[in-house]
């Protein structure tokens, strides 16, 4: 009989080893999947993990990892604070969209003015848009006790309709021959979130993501508020005795995660994407939830998880075009990776041991 025994302390060794074990297991099972689909498994796995990092064109893919990973990390950091305190913001996608609309809207309002202060205003507007959208579930929760999962999720759909609406109306490019979508911010110097060093993939969104990681780390480890967040999640009753104000915590966590998601949307629309269009959002807000958990809600873990996700996206695209793997196979592969990462996490917190039957 095999039983699980909870470790008094999570195992340090396993917490570093499990991600590697999980990636290996995914390679094995993913390889089987690819073999079933009639592809060479070694080649497929190699393409996904090796090609973007060390392949012939890695000079191009490595910076792309930053571009793809930064919004995921930025959003996930914000979400992780709330998740730790048991505050479930599932609607980051909507806050991301509102950040983009507000940010781009602020920039386009100045068009074609050329001034240094436009971009900073857009940054503030983007964060404000996301914050505002997250404040709706926050205030409703504090005031009426409504469930923030439901409200924030519903607001994603509302934000998507808003996005369609402004793409077809308010922000539509007047020189776009009636087609939907805004002016391209990439060609509006003052509003463009350009690469800081050409070809490096480093734009302000990447910088913001790194700052957010450091900020979250310091907050959680060195600051009273971070302590309150952790306490509320781990021992709600103790938190009450420690004088934590739950309403303030809800407003702070939802507001901050909204603002960060809004920033991510703003940096994306003013940089890599360039235009507000009907299909601007591509699910970063939802993927970031996965990233937050993959990173075990730890800032550094999230950073690594974000880039691992980005790697599978980029590697997956390469595998599609080089080997003809269907996009769905890549999705299944990502699903497997998550399964194994989650499953092997068991080894961090529990010890597996053979036991005598008296235990049962």
């Amino acid at each position: 009989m095999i039983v699980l025994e909870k470790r008094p302390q999570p195992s340090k060794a396993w917490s570093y080893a499990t991600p590697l074990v999980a990636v290996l297991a995914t390679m094995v099972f993913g390889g089987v999947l690819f073999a079933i689909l009639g592809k060479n498994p070694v080649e497929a796995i190699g393409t996904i993990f090796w090609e973007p990092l060390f392949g012939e064109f890695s000079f191009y893919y490595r910076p792309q990892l930053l571009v793809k990973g930064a919004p995921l990390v930025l959003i996930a950091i914000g979400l992780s604070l709330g998740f730790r305190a048991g505050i479930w913001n599932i609607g980051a996608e909507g806050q991301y969209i509102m950040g983009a609309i507000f940010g781009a809207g602020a920039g386009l309002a100045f068009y074609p003015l050329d001034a240094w202060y436009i971009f900073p205003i857009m940054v503030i507007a983007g964060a404000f848009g996301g914050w505002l959208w997250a404040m709706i579930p926050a205030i409703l929760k504090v005031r009426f006790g409504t469930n923030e999962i439901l409200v924030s999720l519903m607001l994603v759909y509302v934000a998507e309709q808003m996005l369609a609406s402004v793409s077809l109306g308010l922000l539509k490019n007047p020189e776009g021959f009636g087609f939907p979508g805004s002016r391209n911010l990439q060609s509006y110097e003052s509003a463009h979130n350009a690469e800081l060093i050409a070809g490096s993939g480093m734009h302000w969104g990447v910088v913001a993501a790194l700052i957010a990681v450091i900020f979250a780390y310091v907050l959680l480890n060195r600051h009273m508020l971070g302590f309150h967040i952790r306490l509320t999640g781990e021992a709600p009753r103790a938190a009450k005795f420690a004088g934590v104000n739950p309403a303030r915590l809800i407003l702070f966590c939802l507001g901050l995660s909204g603002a960060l998601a809004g920033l991510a949307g703003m940096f994306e629309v003013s940089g890599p994407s360039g235009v507000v269009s009907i299909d601007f959002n591509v699910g970063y807000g939802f993927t970031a939830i996965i990233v937050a958990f993959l990173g075990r809600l730890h800032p550094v873990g999230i950073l690594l998880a974000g880039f691992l996700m980005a790697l599978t996206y980029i590697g997956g695209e390469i595998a599609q075009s080089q080997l003809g793997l269907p996009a769905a196979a890549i999705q299944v592969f990502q699903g497997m990776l998550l399964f194994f990462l989650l499953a092997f996490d068991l080894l961090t917190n529990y010890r597996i041991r053979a036991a005598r039957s008296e235990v049962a």
Partner: protein
Amino acid sequence: MDLGEINPVLLVASLMVAATPLLLAAIGELVVEKAGVLNLGVEGMMIVGAISGFAISVETGSPWLGFIAAAVGGAVLSLLFVLLTQVALANQVASGLALTLFGLGFSALMGQSYVGVKPPDMGEIHIPVISDIPVIGPILFQHDPILYVGIALTTAVWATLKYSRVGLILRAVGENHDAAHALGYKVIKIRIMAILFGGACAGLGGAYISLIRVPQWTEGMTAGVGWIALALVVFASWKPWRALLGAYLFGGITVLQLNLQAAGVAIPVEYLAMSPYIITILVLVILSADKSSAPASLGRTFHASH
């Protein structure tokens, strides 16, 4: 603009159809959450149910076999969730999301050869005399069988939760798994059964879309219904009848907004399109006076340490 063109009888009849996939998935998830488990993988289980049901009913020519296959398909996928959350004790939120990602991809792989195929028709139950009664007939007695299955399931879940011993144990497990364990109930086993039930219901809901409401197979065709179903459970405060009400309300507003558009009502389309979501939030705020809250152990991992 002519509101007279909207036929209220037909409106009610078609909102029932629109609401059924939501209802099926929501009832299943409600049982899962009553047992204290939060499975965010509803969308994934629905889409796997949609393709399982579609494939089997095309191959066998029987929609009934298709629906059975859909329930099995959904349940099998939920078995993955069982392995993760009940055996490996992984985080439920992340496991559910992973399940959705996996299910969307997996269903697309399964369905590659079913694009552009037409499934066999299930037909409607048409009882002479009763079905022809004006107003009541079209609303109550002219639907496909699965719609009635959805309502029957709601009744069954309500009665089971409220009156039966099984229901009592299920709720006990959801409220306080440690106490339930101390009383000698097999917490993990009960939760596994609940999760499988939830998977089967989600599968049925998915197949309702691919076999009756649309009917065809295309990748990602559930288009977010699973997420709405999740929201509905919260909206319903974990009460089966309120889930039914919520599903009809949501389906009703969706159908009504299209009706208003077709009748030429001068409200901007984007506001109409977002109305189902906003009204859901508003109703939630109004209902917030009801303080019946979530099962206390919802989303928490159970591990019998002794």
